[in-house]
């Protein structure tokens, strides 16, 4: 961790536990340091925060608004609650929304058993989806020699977009469209295999929480992702 001069220390409470924080630390970082688990899907150590999945929403005493823990900064005297009944209900509903949005069929998925979305459903206890499935008709991009992008399993967490821009520096991945029509695209919506900017580094595949990005040749349940390289790369750059 990089040392900074003149950093102020804040003290606050998370779920009743007293914690000490460096100025600028987020509630999510602090909670993890102190063994408090906050669910999240779009956060990824080593890249910038996005605040889009809304699973890490927390309550702060004295405020009516829910804020994402990944972007809320520690303040002196703050009292944070991460597991109120209200938050639990909303988290389950948000997960329902995600599961109903595209075609998440675990039984035929390469990431079955190694999927962040699947684990999240187990963790939050979503045994069934309380909303009608939207069942969109989505394509699979298998033009790349090593990797495949399956839009049916994408949850638009944008981890791939951020890692491509911030770590690899290629900016191949991006987003297109609005609302429910948003799609992850390559360059100016070209087939992945024809992208001139893609370096085929595969970082996007490793950080993808679901089976949306996968290595060619993997069968059901075989796609295990490696994420350990990211914080290491980030740390090497800082020092």
């Amino acid at each position, binding site marked *: 961790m990089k040392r900074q001069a003149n950093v102020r220390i804040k003290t606050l409470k998370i779920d009743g536990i007293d914690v000490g924080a460096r100025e600028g630390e987020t509630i999510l970082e602090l909670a993890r340091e102190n063994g408090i688990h906050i669910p999240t899907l779009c956060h990824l150590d080593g890249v910038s925060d996005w605040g889009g999945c*809304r699973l890490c929403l927390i309550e702060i005493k004295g405020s009516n608004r829910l804020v994402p823990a990944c972007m809320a900064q520690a303040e002196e005297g703050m009292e944070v609650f991460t597991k109120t009944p209200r938050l639990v209900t909303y988290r389950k509903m948000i997960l329902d*929304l995600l599961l109903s949005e595209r075609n998440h069929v675990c039984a035929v998925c390469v990431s079955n058993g190694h999927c962040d979305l699947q684990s999240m459903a187990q963790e939050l206890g979503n045994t069934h989806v309380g909303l009608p499935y939207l069942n969109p008709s989505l394509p699979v991009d298998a033009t790349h020699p090593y990797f495949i992008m399956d839009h049916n399993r994408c949850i638009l967490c944008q981890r791939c977009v951020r890692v491509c821009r911030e770590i690899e520096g290629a900016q191949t991945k991006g987003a297109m469209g609005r609302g429910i029509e948003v799609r992850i695209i390559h360059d100016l919506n070209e087939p992945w295999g024809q992208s001139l900017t893609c370096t085929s580094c595969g970082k996007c595949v490793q950080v993808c929480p679901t089976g949306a990005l996968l290595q060619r040749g993997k069968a059901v349940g075989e796609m295990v992702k490696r994420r350990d390289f990211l914080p290491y790369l980030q740390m090497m750059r800082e020092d």
Partner: protein
Amino acid sequence: MHERFDEITQKELADNRAAQHVVKVCVAAGCLSSQSAEVKTALEQGVNGRSCKVKGVGCLGLCSEGPLVAIEKHLPDGSSQNIMYQNVTPEDAPAIMESLDKEPVARLLCPTDVPFFQRQQKIVLENSGEIDPERIEEYIAADGYRALITAVTEMAPFEVIEQITRSGLRGRGGGGYPTGLKWVTVAKAPGPDKFVICNADEGDPGAFMDRAVLESDPHRVLEGMAIAAYATGANEGYIYVRGEYPLAIARLKTAIRQAQRMGLLGSNIAGTTFSFNINIRLGAGAFVCGEETALIASIEGRRGQPRPRPPYPAEYGLWGKPTLINNVETFANVPTIIRKGGDWYASIGTAKSKGTKVFALAGSIVNTGLIEVPMGTSLRDIVYEIGGGLPNGGVCKAVQTGGPSGGCIPASYFDTPVDYESLKELGSIMGSGGMIVMDESASMVDVARFFMEFCMTESCGKCVPCRVGTVHMYNILSKIYQGEGTPRDVELLEKLCDMVSVTSLCGLGQSAPNPVVSTLRYFRHEYDELIAGANGSQTAVAPTTEVAS
């Protein structure tokens, strides 16, 4: 500078008085679309040596009767007489020109002694319909840019902010955040580089207030921005205007060029050390870009998506610098407040909502158009008095205010004064000022469905509740409207409304359920009837008008 302005003013007044008649043709978008440009040409051709001046002016207000032509007749005793013509066609031009010295053309006369004109109080729209929006001289003759000169030469920045704070002006874009407070936070933010942004990305269905202000009196907005820049210490400004407003963009460009030429924008304004430049950025048709953090992303050249706040733009805005963002109408109020004082402005309106508000009347109403009334005017006065009621004596069922973020207010609450707090209590919002009047034939479920469809297609897709939740809500509303709903659908709809409004990232998602919540609150019986019909049940559902939200 004031002397130079006096000179221009005198010349303008003399020019104006030299002609016996001043014929003012509305050349704002509404009238232009019904041939007012041709009307103006025909009138100009009909001058024929008469002592008469034909000029294009901004919006005259009564858009439904356009093209509108106002004639100012100068009498020998120095006073003047005004008449207005409605639905003028190019073929009517000779008749109008012939009648100048005689009796007016009766068949075209538009009565101006009616409440629509009499009950209004104009501050933002004081020059619209009076001056030519493409000539800076006319704006200066109407006391324009004097507030800016006074501010930069005679007032300290904190004194300017004090006047704004005293005026009680609140953001006219919808939120109603105190403008003075916003200015203070930007002024106190450290750093040499700050920005002022004018949000002209007016996207609510049925709203056209900002468009009319920009088309009718663009200099007023520039002056307001320059004053704000002086007060907050900014020296670069952006106007983010939607690409669908080509006329407003053209007039803004003309206005900026004219103001630069006169030294009212640019370096060393009025010989002081204060410099301020304004750039125009065009929106590409995304509603969400009216949200301030998405707007900033769009100006920076990124995808127009909001980010969580804090940090607020006042602290971390455009290019990471402290940034002041206000709406067109907010800036348009500023010159008058500086000229006449904050206390004067605070004397208008209600205890918590000061000044006037421009509303765009649309839907099932006789006088479709633009009005400006003091805060606190009741909805009944706006719809039945000023708006002239519904066509063919129809009965009003509800008024939709605040666009897709607002709600429907039923006719039984029409005596409520229109201000920020009262509308909020009724489950709607002031919003930017669109008012859609609906008659008895309107299905409130369909209205809710319409606005939900709007939010669904305009969602940026960044956060899950707004991206997916709006789709589910739209599907449920469609199902109910088509007579296939079940009581469980309404239950689910209510749950989704709560979840989407609480967990969404930005204002779009947080307010997207409002039209549904307010129609469920006041018109629940319509939902129940559709569902009862769907289930073939013959039991009449008792209409409930008040259901705890």
